[in-house]
């Protein structure tokens, strides 16, 4: 996803009438990945050093002057180290800055809690003016970069790391406040948030083998949400699961639960597949951590089957 991110930035800045407002601001992360952009756009690449608060304040200043900065570092630090600058300098002024967090969720599972970003959606979703986008693959990442650039306000772009499989084989209709259906199925619906998508798709395959038809959606826009989709799902299937590498508090599942409570409930049951309320200290990469916490395809399929049995479906 990070390669797709910078390639799309390079393309947008380099078009014959390339966007001269784009500035990439990093807090000393992105070894070599920015070389081409920097060479092609002298002056519009800024490495602030390992100083996320300064990076974010600088981006606000750049945007106040009419530029379109993208701040970039690991998602645990961006927003973790600069939350107040995001809230006051960017969101309060409603500036078109895109805050890019790379390796979100369990992307850097083996590096420990310093590098886990499992609360970031909650932090940013709660700030007025902020839009939260969680693309699920490299193709959606490119779409999300363009959507962020078109949007006249702050965006949090929550990315995976690198090497995520491509799940879209043609460009989808990606819209802020929308969602994208990847599988059809009327028994259950899986709303996958971000890079965990391949597990949801594999889970749907496993369920199909057992005769369970599960639809799968890329729920890439956590704020604003696709409430039209939610309306139709909760009136049509018996269970809706949100799958995200995030804790329960304030994440995408929480956003759907809030919506459901305000709606007065009804229709489908809402399930959560996500992280527990604890720091994760065991060694192992993202795949291992997903299995450990039940976010892998097999566990997801099992959870959905037992939930359906409880529903009596």
């Amino acid at each position, binding site marked *: 996803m990070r390669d797709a991110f910078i390639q799309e930035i390079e393309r947008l800045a380099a078009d014959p009438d390339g966007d001269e407002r784009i500035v990439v601001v990093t807090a000393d992360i992105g070894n070599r990945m920015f070389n081409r952009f920097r060479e092609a756009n002298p002056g519009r690449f800024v490495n*602030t050093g390992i100083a996320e608060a300064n990076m974010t304040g600088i981006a*606000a*200043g750049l945007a106040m002057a009419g*530029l379109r900065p993208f701040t970039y570092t690991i998602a645990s630090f961006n927003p973790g180290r600069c939350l*107040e*600058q995001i809230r006051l300098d960017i969101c309060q*002024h409603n500036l078109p800055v895109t805050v890019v967090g790379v390796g979100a969720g369990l992307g850097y599972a083996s590096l420990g809690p310093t590098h886990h970003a499992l609360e970031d959606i909650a932090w940013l979703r709660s700030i007025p003016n902020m839009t939260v986008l969680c693309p699920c693959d490299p193709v959606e990442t490119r779409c999300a970069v363009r959507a962020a650039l078109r949007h006249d306000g702050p965006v949090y772009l929550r990315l995976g790391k690198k090497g995520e499989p491509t799940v879209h084989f043609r460009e989808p209709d990606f819209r802020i406040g929308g969602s994208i259906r990847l599988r059809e199925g009327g028994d259950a619906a899986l709303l996958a948030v971000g890079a965990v998508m391949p597990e949801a798709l594999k889970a749907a395959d496993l369920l199909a083998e057992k005769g369970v038809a599960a639809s799968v959606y890329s729920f890439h826009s956590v704020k604003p949400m696709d409430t039209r989709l939610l309306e139709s799902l909760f009136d049509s299937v018996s269970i809706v699961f949100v799958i995200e590498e995030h804790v329960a508090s304030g994440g995408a599942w929480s956003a759907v639960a809030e919506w459901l409570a305000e709606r007065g409930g009804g229709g489908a049951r809402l399930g959560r597949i996500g992280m527990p309320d604890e720091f994760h200290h065991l060694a192992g990469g993202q795949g291992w951590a997903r299995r450990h916490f039940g976010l892998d395809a097999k566990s997801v399929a099992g959870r959905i089957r037992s939930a359906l049995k409880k529903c009596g479906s």
Partner: protein
Amino acid sequence: MAEGAKSLLSAYRGNNLREVAGLIRLGVIELSHRTGTAHIGSCLSVADILAAAYWGGLNVAPETAASPDRDRLVFGKGHAAAALLSALAARGFFPLETLDGFNREGGLLQEHPGPDWPAGVETAAGSLGHALSIAVGLALAASIQGRGYRVCAVIGDGECNEGSVWEAAMFAGGQGLARLCAVVDLNGWQGIGRSGEITALEPLADKWRAFGWHAIEVDGHDPDKLRDLLAAYGDGGKPTAIIARTVKGKGVSFMEDDNHWHYRTLKPSERLAAVAEIAAIPTPRQ
């Protein structure tokens, strides 16, 4: 606002910076008294700096308040908003009636600057340690866009406790951002103590020098000198730090160097005494 101060502020067309600073101080006293707003000491210490910046130090004027080429003053000391508002009103950035919305229920101006404040107020403020980074961003934008404007952040000595100030300072020094200036209103106090006793604040000018800045120490109540320094910076390959040594509560004898006036508001008798002291400074002939 009292009619006297109102007529003084709206009538001022001169260019005597000590008179200007006196008007700003009167505006602070009146705004604070009318609305029960604190932080009078911080407002009074920064008055001469604002007079210098808005009356000749920076390329700012009401007519060019929206020009992309204007100099930018980024005000970090958000708690001294009453001083900023008084300065901008006196300079003619907005009608004096705008101040009627300050710190009143439902008014458009809270106690700290917001994102939609009137012309002349470049950024919201109130949380410390933000202004210098925003100023760095504005300075970088000028380079990227090929504009000639300069940027000046006005920050406090207490604000220099914030690590982000030094992130921005180290970066600006490393990049040699000559069009950037930081004015530190060094009034010697912060929230609940003397700034020099809480952290190793001094030698403050040397700190900025060590971070790659050109640093100048100056009497922060000499507005003519401040104006000359502000008018001159912008070349030389380094950002400029002006360490303005000030007195908290300057201009009102019973407030000077007394940190109670970080929090206290004025009794009617104190207001009259304060106005009398400030007005004793030569004021413009009507």
